[in-house]
């Protein structure tokens, strides 16, 4: 395939052209209440051609490999359409990369029959059928692919990733239906199903705990956020504001603030796709640029943004290997990989010390942030009241609201132990990519906590 692409690209007169091609195989198992809901397998091929001509972009994609030559021509034609009022795109220089990469999981999805995978999932799901658990859903997905990247500068890369994803949800019925879920995902194979009994039991326990939980107090207070919520803060509130395209387009509050102190000494945040086998890891991005560690904030000082080749050129820096596309039929955008708060030096006890009344925030259900204003709002899976330095009553529907420009300065503690491995799918401009986030537990002196049952303040 590499040769065919190279030959086709050799024929184009465009200033720059690149091809991403992928063939992937997928399996999916869905179980409800320990019964099979769906089992599905399949494969597909897809590719995309991106052409830069006269500083204007054109893009064409198809899933029929015979269309390759036609797509190169089409993309060049579309670059002409863009050139009438173009953004004047230029690419930062990037080394010519050649290499073959492969993920070698313990248990390759191809080596294990779908019946065996299903049996294992059924076994896990049966384990979850417990008292007070009204309903459960278990989902398992695996995929492996052959990826090829070729550009007119000479870069030629192949990559055979293997990915798996596991999620378990448990529902309990109080006045309303309550849901708890846990997941695992990474560049790994069927071994993801090993030892998941513990995760199933923990999720059930969490769902039952929600039955006893109440809404948190509202108002500004001291909180300790656990590694999952720290990851959300790193990814949603800071990471998105550090994406080169947002910065350049004036959509980030961090524009023009490089080298400024925007957080306390306790705040160091990095993005790193080279960490081994996490969900957001990769050897090279969709522009053929090698993945690399990027320090976004070091001890409170804003150091770097993440870039594609195009945004790096505009900022006159080197590309950071963050130009990612959901798949070859999409245009690469500046995206994160594995984004996290770095560990500090405090013990768990020290983090809670002296908090008279506060909230300990566990996990996260999701988050949004406005990169323009720095505003963020995150919903936690659940929480606990902190009273006199001790964790007490369980809480649900805890929401944190703040602004990174204020909140990062109020970070007063970071735990010794970092946990990275909360995998997720990050959406931007209609494209979804696998990412991971994390960090240690973080203490924030003052942040707005939103509850919702007014007048039922448990404090």
């Amino acid at each position, binding site marked *: 395939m590499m040769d065919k692409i190279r030959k086709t690209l050799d024929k184009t007169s465009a200033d720059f052209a690149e091809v991403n091609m992928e063939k992937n195989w997928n399996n999916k198992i869905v179980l409800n*209440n320990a019964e099979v*809901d769906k*089992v599905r397998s399949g494969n597909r091929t897809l590719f995309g051609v991106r052409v830069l001509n006269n500083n204007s972009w054109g893009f064409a994609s198809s899933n029929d490999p015979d269309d390759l030559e036609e797509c190169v021509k089409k993309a060049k034609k579309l670059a002409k359409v863009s050139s009438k009022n173009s953004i004047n795109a230029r690419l930062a220089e990037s080394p010519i990369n050649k290499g073959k990469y492969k993920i070698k999981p313990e248990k390759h999805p191809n080596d294990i029959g779908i019946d065996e995978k299903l049996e294992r999932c059924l076994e896990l799901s049966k384990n979850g059928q417990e008292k007070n658990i009204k309903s459960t859903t278990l989902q398992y997905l695996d995929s492996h692919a052959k990826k090829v990247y070729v550009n007119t500068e000479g870069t030629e890369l192949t990559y055979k990733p293997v990915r798996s994803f596991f999620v378990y949800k448990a*529902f309990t019925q109080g006045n*309303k239906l309550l849901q708890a879920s846990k997941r695992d995902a990474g560049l790994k194979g069927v071994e993801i199903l090993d030892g998941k009994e513990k995760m199933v039991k923990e999720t059930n326990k969490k769902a039952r705990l929600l039955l006893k939980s109440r809404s948190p107090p509202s108002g500004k207070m001291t909180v300790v956020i656990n590694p999952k919520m720290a990851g959300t803060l790193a990814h949603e509130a800071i990471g998105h504001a550090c994406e080169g395209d947002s910065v350049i387009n004036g959509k980030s509050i961090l524009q023009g603030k490089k080298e400024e102190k925007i957080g306390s000494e306790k705040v160091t945040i990095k993005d790193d796709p080279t960490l081994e086998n996490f969900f957001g890891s990769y050897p090279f991005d969709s522009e053929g640029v090698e993945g690399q560690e990027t320090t976004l904030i070091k001890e409170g000082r804003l150091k770097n943004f993440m870039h594609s080749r195009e945004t790096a050129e505009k900022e006159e820096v080197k590309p950071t290997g963050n130009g990612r596309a959901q798949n070859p039929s999409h245009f690469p955008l500046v995206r994160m990989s594995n984004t996290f708060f770095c560990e500090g030096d405090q013990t768990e006890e020290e983090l809670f010390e002296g908090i008279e009344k506060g909230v300990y925030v566990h996990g996260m259900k999701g988050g949004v942030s406005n990169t323009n204003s720095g505003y963020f*709002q995150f919903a936690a899976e659940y929480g606990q009241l902190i009273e006199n330095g001790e964790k007490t009553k369980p809480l649900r529907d805890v929401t944190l609201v703040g602004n990174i420009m204020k909140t990062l300065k109020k970070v007063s503690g970071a735990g010794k132990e970092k946990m990275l491995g909360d995998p997720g799918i990050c959406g931007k401009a209609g494209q979804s990519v696998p990412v991971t986030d994390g960090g240690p537990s973080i203490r924030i002196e003052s942040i707005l906590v939103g509850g*919702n049952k007014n007048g039922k303040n448990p404090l």
Partner: protein
Amino acid sequence: MEKILCKAEKKAESAEIYRLNEQNSLIRTSQGKIETSKTGKSKGYGLRITRNSSTGYSYFSEKKHADKAIKTALKLAKMNKNPVELPLTKKTRKTKTFDKKIQELDFDDLARLIRRINKGTNRHAETLKSQISTYIVKVRVINSRGTDLQKKSTSFLAYAVGKKKKATGIDYYFKKKFSPKVTEVGEKAGKIAKKSAGGKPLSFTGDIVIDPEVLSSFLEKTVLRDVNGKKIDKGQSNWNEKIGEKVSDEFNLTDDPFLDYGAGTTSFDDEAVPTSKTTLIKKGVLKNFLDNLETSRESTGNGFRSNYSSTPSIDTTNIVLEPPERENVFDVKKGVFVKNLSGFHNMNASTGDFALNIGTGFRIKNGKKTKPVRGCMLTGNFYNMINKIKGFHEEDEQKTWFKGPAIRYKGKIVGS
């Protein structure tokens, strides 16, 4: 396709092939300049085979993989326990889903249209982003019971984001019919940005007016999940045993696949079942669920595939909310109009509790929208909201798949 079906039939009790053929084109601008021009096409097949009263699914994009896909589906059928009875040929109702004008648009036209959007936005604010997209989708479903249905649809999206100071304004149009009025989309985004500039947070309890698009997002997260027949069968809906019970104020909520050029308009679903108008709520009483061939009730024609690689699942078509009576919901002494809320994926979908950020909002004074509001949270519970509606607006709005009015209720906003 017939050949593949023939092969599959030989080894199975029944078989179905779904073929999806898609073409899309887009132009996107950033700060008024063309960021990219893009075109894409894709074709693929989803296979469903039943053997020994169980069903297996597989998919493929290249025809040469058809034999292997049949084998895989047969193997998977052994493991699945949900038998699906494929439909016989039935008559479908004609719907308006295809606009020749969309098919005829070339990239020079798209470039011209996007210039008009930006011109509209520029009259009031800066142009942050804009996009024009077109889609042409062809679907064919054939099955071993003689059913052979085909449909063709087009879609047109015009989208604009304006910016003034730190405030943004968004407007869009997404239907199966071309709209030449794209300047208005740009203009509206610009106007909203301009009016929102300098918005401040506030704390407020009282009359709150919710925009129809915000209402549709709430419905999507809660009620429309509750009426999903699959969730009912699994016991994961709040409305499991509530048919015939009062679930809301006295409005009607209907799944209507026949609205002309609506984003969800279609004559049959992706399982070849003719679509039908389904009353979900009538005068506040829960009447029906939405079903496909896999649920324990008869299919309502709501089995859709998001792609050829995905298996059919339940989805809505167009949703129509009809109020019992109408008024000018803005006609209050003091209130807040919530035009845009962000973070819906943060809301607790199972309980209906929410605390969402107001992206664009305005104070209402003596029936008029006045100062902008942003950076504060609308908090409450959606199930409570739809049981305490104080008024439905005079006019309906339909931008995509939802048609309905703005509503007014007594709610709470928490400032920071």
